């Protein structure tokens, strides 16, 4: 059994050498401000390692800079078809739609947001990760109230917060789930729960400016602040680096 594991490990380690080289080359191209050259290299790395969050993260950054959203959507469509069990590939497929939203018209934004949700759900079905639950939950909050999606967001974000609470080490990035859950409570007309959630978040992550900003506001001022944060015309931060940079 131990030998089998060793063999498997060796096999896995041999492939990374190739896709790591492609990723390194892609990063060199990015450093040389040559995103066009970087894109196929990132794609090559991801084809070999579809669940690699870091590869996808850098790829999508280059996609945002070049506005090659449709290329990326097409790429992830093929990648997830070839690797239907790759939970983080599905997650990044969803992010690619989210990344395109600020550059789209108001109705296309709705279609993109819905496509993103579909892919986030695929990711969660495969693997209930904190990042996927937080992402889908937060995405639901961007939908106008009339569509009744905020309660779905609250459910996801409660699960994400529960997962984060259970972690021995509270990564800084987890604060986002407290912020979003509070927003979800606020959006579903539970202001006291919202404030309690933000307060709990501030205890766990002292000095967080977003939590402080919410707790410093009330009434219409708070409403305006939250709606401003959830404006679909503003780019959503889909940078995943904080997950591994701590």
């Amino acid at each position, binding site marked *: 059994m131990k030998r089998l594991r060793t063999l498997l490990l060796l096999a896995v380690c041999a492939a990374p050498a190739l896709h790591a080289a492609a990723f390194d080359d892609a990063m060199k191209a990015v450093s040389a401000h040559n995103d066009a050259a970087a894109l196929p290299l990132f794609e090559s790395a991801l084809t070999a390692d579809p669940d690699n969050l870091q590869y996808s993260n850098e790829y999508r950054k280059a996609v945002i800079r070049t506005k090659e959203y449709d290329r990326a959507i097409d790429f992830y469509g093929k990648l997830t078809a070839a690797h239907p069990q790759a939970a983080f590939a599905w997650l990044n497929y969803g992010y690619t739609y989210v990344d395109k939203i600020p550059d789209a018209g108001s109705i296309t934004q709705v*279609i993109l947001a819905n496509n993103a949700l579909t892919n986030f759900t695929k990711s969660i079905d495969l693997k209930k990760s904190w990042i996927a639950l937080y992402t889908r939950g937060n995405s639901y909050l961007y939908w106008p109230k009339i*569509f009744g999606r905020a309660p779905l967001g609250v459910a996801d974000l409660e699960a994400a917060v529960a997962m984060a609470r259970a972690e021995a080490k509270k990564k800084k990035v987890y604060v986002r789930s407290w912020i979003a859950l509070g927003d979800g409570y606020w959006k579903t007309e539970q202001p006291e729960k919202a404030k309690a959630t933000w307060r709990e978040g501030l205890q766990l992550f002292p000095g967080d400016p977003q939590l402080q900003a919410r707790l410093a506001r009330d009434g219409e001022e708070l409403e305006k602040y939250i709606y401003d944060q959830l404006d679909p015309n503003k780019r959503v931060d889909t940078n995943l680096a904080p997950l591994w940079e701590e």
Partner: protein
Amino acid sequence: MRRLWLVLLLAAAPLAAQQPKPAPPIRFEEISEKAGARLLHHTRTFHGKSADVLGMFTSGGASVAVGDFDGDGDDDLFVTDSDAGKPCHLLRNEFRPTGKLAFTEVTKEAGVEGGNDPKSIVADALWLDADNDGRPDLLVARFGTPILYHNLGNGKFKDVSKEAGLTKFGNTIAAIAFDYDNDGRVDLLLGNYFPPVNLIDLPTPHVLPNNLDQATNGGGVTLWRNVTEPGSGKIRFVEVTEKAGLARHTGWTLDLGHGDLNNDGWQDLYIADDYGTDRLFLNNGDGTFRDATQSSLGGLDTKKGMNAEIVDYDNDGWLDVYVTNITDEYMKECNMLWHNNGDGTFTDLSKETGTCNTLWGWAAKFGDFDDDGWQDLFAVDGLRSASKENYIPVLLEMIITPNIDFTDVNNWPAIGKMSWSGYQRKKLFRNLGTQAFKEMAAEAGVDNDLDGRGIALADFDDDGRLDIYQTNANQNSLLYHNVSASGGHWIELKLIGTKSNRDAIGARATLKAGGGQMIREVNGGNGYAGQSTTRLHFGLGKTTAVDSLEIRWPGGKIEKVTVPIDKVTTIKEGAGVVP
């Protein structure tokens, strides 16, 4: 000390309660019924499978056109209806000579009630003096072929559409008259919403937009050059869309605006499109236009353009453009106030000026309602006010269906009795003169919640205060009489072209007074579903003297004139002020 404050506060409270509220600077009274100008509009009733959806998509045809058809000096009204067999309405203003602001319907005598035949839907109307005979003729734009009524001068009109060459089918929803080649004759630009298929007798279900943010399968525009021989009495137009460089625009046109945007003496164009792709065309001065959308506006937009109003709202000597879009709970487009930077570029200042949100916007017009020298803005909104049930969640299900074909009318869910962006309050923005506006529709008495469509501004009773006529889809129209007590001085100019087109459309007046400068251009129907008066109105505030007034006629000739304040003055090209 604290008690003293409390005592003072209590003592002051009753006094404050007794203080009369200061009168708002802008105030209107709704007098449509009293003045005989209240008219009920009916949208077209469709039959068959796609009836509900087509009815919804064609609910824009409640329009109004202001013009002095009988030449008695006051502005009359033509108001459209859209359902089969329903007559349009010509209302004669009785202010001159009776002194009373009242209208009399004279439609039948004039012979202009037609247009809503079984296969055509009236959608817009426009006064224009096509043969320069001093009598405004009337164009009725339709989902169908247009109707051109020649004004015979005896209170009667004659349908001359065929002889005039206006026989081309189009789903026309907007029409403007302007002299694009400065040849002294007003030309016609028609804005078409759907591609040219008859909606009442659908040859294909694929008639709706191919993209809801950047549609390219609409009706575009058609440009008609006026080739009427002077003195012939026979009006003739020929289509020059392709030649003029406008044929490649195939958006879902909802409104058209013209004006000299780059101060070169030639009339330029702004085309507002539903489902994105507004266009700005600059006039080359040789009978052609160039598409300057990219260089001037930064590219194609994705918004639902409804209105193209062109004025110099900040008195900097350059015409700006105001476009309404959709801003609602479910869609945050924001309007566009394209500030003209004077260097060929425009910057959208709608957010900065506070004019971004007029909900589901339709017509919006600038006018100096309080005569303070700054043009204010009235905007109507609201798509469909019906039951409490909301169509938006139903529509969402269709929109997010994978690979749905939006063009297929059968894919759109029926709206039934549901509301869609209904019961919306109108907006009136007072221009504060500092690149800022204050919304005050409620104070001004114009915050009705009808399903607004068109606006026409005119001083119907010659009192120097601009009145408002508002049309509404499937609802009664409104006439807002301006009763503002601001007491600002004013002048109004009726321009008559001689070498230029007789309506003087495109003429620009530049007025200097009180250390400031204002410009106004005569326009032929800018703004959605409404043609305002061709009289130029200037508010002067407390200023009691005009330093200078210059008229630049469309042919290029510049005349300096002296006019009295607080009066309507007629100026004839080459002759100055005339009685």
